Structures are given as structure tokens and as C-alpha cells.
């Protein structure tokens, strides 16, 4: 398999929901392997739908998606994709602990009874350590702060050891410190060869660490390196006419975000 078939290939995807709402029309884009790619667009512009289609939660009316050259179904079976859900999509009152949630990332590697083995426990411990959640591992998930909740689910994605990690609105409802910490973890994961796709409507932060950006409003309007994509013309096409000053996009070059190791893993 040639390396240019790696990453996520989205070809001419259209999605219509059962209420006849056309969420995506003829969207095509390519997520390069080993990059952090930001998916940007207005609310209702189809970001979540594209995510859900890539993950296989929604079946498109037309079009094809390949993950590292494989169909979505094969990619699921081979644990190629991990998903960090939006906070709103999780039942925080569910009687599971942080460690239980992270262990769920390992289910795909276990036998039918899902009895964890030594490797599963090691991966869970390591993931908890990396996100700095070891001390909270026995907490019920509803007893966590917003940032801790995000880190618990990021740990699950890490324990899954998937090449591709998708994060749906990872910075919604977290403070600046947590955002920085999550960004640091994402940069580490990129260094380790993971492909990361995240959706956000926070344009200012995306230009600080996303290598590439996809602009989406019902269809893909622009894609490329963040520097070339974040033009006033592209942004006003995506969001309608917004004053550029409110977006503050191109001050920092992508790939230049300092990968510091001191200010992580301390709480």
C-alpha cells in the first residue's frame, strides 16, 4: 500500500437525514496522515455530520470514505479510529468510573467476555498517567470537572491505540489551561504518528497548532495548510461576512506551537 493512500479520504459525500434535511452535499477532502487537521465551520454547517459519517455512525446517501485505504467498516474492526465525543453526547450520570471508561477503549482487543488482560491494564494505566488522571481513576465520571472529563475520554482514545483520532469540539467548555494541556497531548500524539482530526468553532486557537484546516459549510469550501486556508475570502465564504478582527486567525504560524513538556500532567 502506498503511503499516499494513508490518512482519511472523503469523496463526494452527501448526507440527508430522515427529516429530509440535507446536512452535507458532495463534500470531498483529504486528511493527511501524521497531521493535526482542524475542521472549521459554522454551527449547523455539517461538522458533526462529517465526523459521524467518517466514524460510521451515519451512512451517507452517496460517496465513499477510506481510512488508511480501508473502508469504514474494516477500519472499525481493526481499531483504526478512536472518537472523543462532545460533552453533550455523554450521560455523565452513568455509573461508570474513569478507569471503566478508559478500559472501554480496549474492548476491541479482548475476547467476547471482555476480560482485560495484562496488556489492557498496562495501556489503561499508561493512558491515565499521560493525561494526568491517575488520581481520579476511581471517580464516577460525573464527579469530574469539564477539563477532567475531556481528559478521561482522550485517555480512552489513547488506550485504543488507534492511528486516527477524531475529537468533536474538544475545547468547548474547558478553560485556557486545560485547552493548552489537551493541545500539548495532541502535539505529542502527532509526533508519535497519529492522525488527528478535530472540529471546533474557535478560529483563534486553531491557527496556533493545526497543521491543516478544512473549511466546511454544507460542503468543503477550502482545504490546505492553515496559513493558506485562513484567508479573509475563504472565511467570509464559510461563515458569511464576519469582520476579520473577530477571528484573529493568522498571527501564529502552524507547526510553531511550542511542544513543552513541563506544563502538562500537573493539576
Amino acid at each position, binding site marked *: 500500500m502506498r503511503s499516499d493512500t494513508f490518512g482519511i479520504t472523503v469523496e463526494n459525500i452527501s448526507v440527508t437525514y430522515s427529516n429530509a434535511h440535507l446536512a452535507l452535499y458532495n463534500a470531498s477532502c483529504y486528511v493527511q496522515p501524521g497531521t493535526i487537521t482542524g475542521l472549521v465551520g459554522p454551527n449547523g454547517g455539517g461538522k458533526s455530520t462529517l465526523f459521524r459519517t467518517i466514524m460510521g*455512525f451515519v451512512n451517507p446517501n452517496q460517496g465513499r470514505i477510506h481510512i488508511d485505504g480501508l473502508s469504514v467498516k474494516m477500519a472499525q474492526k481493526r481499531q483504526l479510529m478512536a*472518537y472523543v*465525543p462532545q460533552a453533550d453526547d455523554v450521560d455523565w450520570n452513568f455509573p461508570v468510573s474513569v478507569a*471503566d471508561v478508559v478500559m*472501554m*477503549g480496549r474492548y476491541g482487543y479482548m475476547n467476547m467476555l471482555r476480560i482485560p488482560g495484562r496488556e489492557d491494564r498496562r495501556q489503561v494505566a499508561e493512558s491515565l498517567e499521560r493525561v494526568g488522571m491517575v488520581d481520579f481513576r476511581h471517580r*464516577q465520571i460525573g464527579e469530574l470537572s469539564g477539563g477532567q472529563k475531556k481528559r478521561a475520554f482522550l485517555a480512552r482514545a489513547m488506550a485504543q491505540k488507534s492511528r486516527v483520532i477524531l475529537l468533536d469540539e474538544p475545547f468547548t467548555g474547558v478553560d485556557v489551561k486545560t485547552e493548552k494541556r489537551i493541545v500539548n497531548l495532541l502535539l505529542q500524539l502527532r509526533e508519535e504518528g497519529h492522525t488527528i482530526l478535530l472540529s471546533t468553532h474557535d478560529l483563534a486557537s486553531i491557527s496556533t497548532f493545526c497543521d491543516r484546516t478544512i473549511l466546511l459549510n454544507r460542503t468543503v469550501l477550502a482545504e490546505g495548510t492553515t496559513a493558506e486556508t485562513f484567508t479573509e475570502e475563504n472565511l467570509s465564504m464559510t461563515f458569511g461576512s464576519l469582520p476579520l478582527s473577530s477571528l484573529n486567525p493568522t498571527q501564529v504560524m502552524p507547526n510553531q506551537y511550542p511542544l513543552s513538556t513541563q506544563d502538562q500532567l500537573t493539576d
Partner: protein
Amino acid sequence: MVHALISTFHGPLPLLGVMLNPLWQWLIEPLQAGFMVKAIWVSAFVGVVCAVLSCYITLKGWSLMGDAVSHAVVPGVVVAYAMGLPFALGAFIFGFGATVIIGYVKSATRLKEDAVIGVIFTGFFAFGLVLATKIPSNVDLFHILFGNVLGISPSDIIQTLIAGIATLVIILVRRKDLLLFCFDPNHAKAIGLNTQLMYYTLLSVLALTIVTALQTAGIVLVVAMLVTPGATAYLLTDRFDHMLAISVATSVISCVVGTYFSYHLDISTGGSIVVLMTMLFTLAMVFAPKYGLLRQKIMRQVPVE
């Protein structure tokens, strides 16, 4: 033998013996009737099966689905009796069939799920009533609706046991996947699990559990046995294994004590079991250490730091 046991209380601790004697009589006396021994262990067994499933049903938010399936089995029971087939078979086919139809109508129309469930299960139930009043059979509508564990027949016990054991085995083998399916079906899908299969697995064990509980609680009250123990336990703990244990304990206690009350006070068995369950739920709701109403009230009065 009973008298020998009672007399041991009179020996070293006469006062305690006098106090315990009526309670002891109350517990032992019904057991001299064979039908009561049967009724007690059958209802205890049904209590275990319902309690285990109720944890999943509560967490998945399928209480209304449980109500639907229980009502939808009526035509199945009537047809099975009329054709001389085991009641459990007819009940399972119609109960499960109703859930499949609910799933289809929901996906094919713009209606919300609760409307679809409401339409389909009442339709099945009404059809069952029509059949029961027209088809000549010895089926007693009152027993289907309200249960009759005190008069349970050996063949009904066998059917109850088969349905109950099948339920417990399926849940035991698939318990972690079912819990993941209740908690985060998207993640289940993302790691390549067949969520469609899990949806139907949970629906089949729901139908099987209703078949199990039919003779004890009756159609009208089955849903209480499928929801109340899990709901009670959910108010008392944050851990799923504890939730299972508490659910089973409250359910079995209610089933056994409820059957005793039914015998002594000559009241409906299903009714007395469910009244006890509801009382335990109310206690949990008020006094639960973390999520109880009292605790919440105290928490509101004392601002945290």
C-alpha cells in the same frame, strides 16, 4: 419439626422466644402448603431475573419499551393457549415482534418514538383483549393481566425457568457489551461491535424477562419489576456492580415478603410485591446517602466552601 425449632427459642432465651414466636409462625406456617413453597421460590427467581435486567433498562431509558412489550404479549398468550402451545412461545413471539414493528414504524415515519410505542402496544393489547373474549379457551384473562403465582402450574414453572435462565445466561455472557451499548453506542460502533445485534439482543432479553415475570406479576405490573429495582439501586450507588447487587437484593426481598403478605392478608401477589418495591424505592429516594432528597436539601442549605 417446626415445633422442635420453635421450642429451641424457649430454652436459653425465653423472652426472645416469646417475641420471635409469632414472626417464626408467620414465616413457617405458609411453607406447610406445597403451593406456597413453589410460589415463594418462583417469585424469588423472577425477582432475580427482573432485577438484573432492570439495571440495563433503567440506564438505557427503555422503561416505556418494557411497558410496551409486556402489553404486546397478550395476543400471543391467548393464541398459544388456544392452539395448545406453551404460553411462553406465543408471548415471546408477539412481544419481540412488537418491538421490531416499533423500530420499523419509527424509521419509516416522522413520528417520535414514544408516539410510535404508544400506538403499537395499545393496538397489540386491544387485539389480545378481542381474541381473549372471542376465542374459546380456558385462558383466564384476569390471570394474564394480574398474574397468579399462587396457582402456578408445573408446566408454567418450567417455562418460567427456561425463559429466566436464558435471560441470565445471555446477560452474563454479553454484560460488558450491553453496558457499553447503554452507555456509549457510538464508541461500541467505533470499535467494530455490531450495535444492531446488541439492540436486538437487549430487546430479546427484555421480551424473555417479561415472559419470565408474566405468571408472577401479570402484564399490568411487569413493568414495575423491570424498572423499580434498577431505579432504586441507581439512587444508591455510582458503581454498576453495586447497582446490580442492590437491585437484586431489593427485588428478591420484595418478591418473597410480598408473596407472604399475599398469603396472610389474602391480597393480590403481584400487587403486594410491587407495593413493597415502591416503598423501598421511596425510602431510597428520601434517604439515599448521596442522591436522596434529604441529602440534597442539606447540600443546598450548606454552601460548599
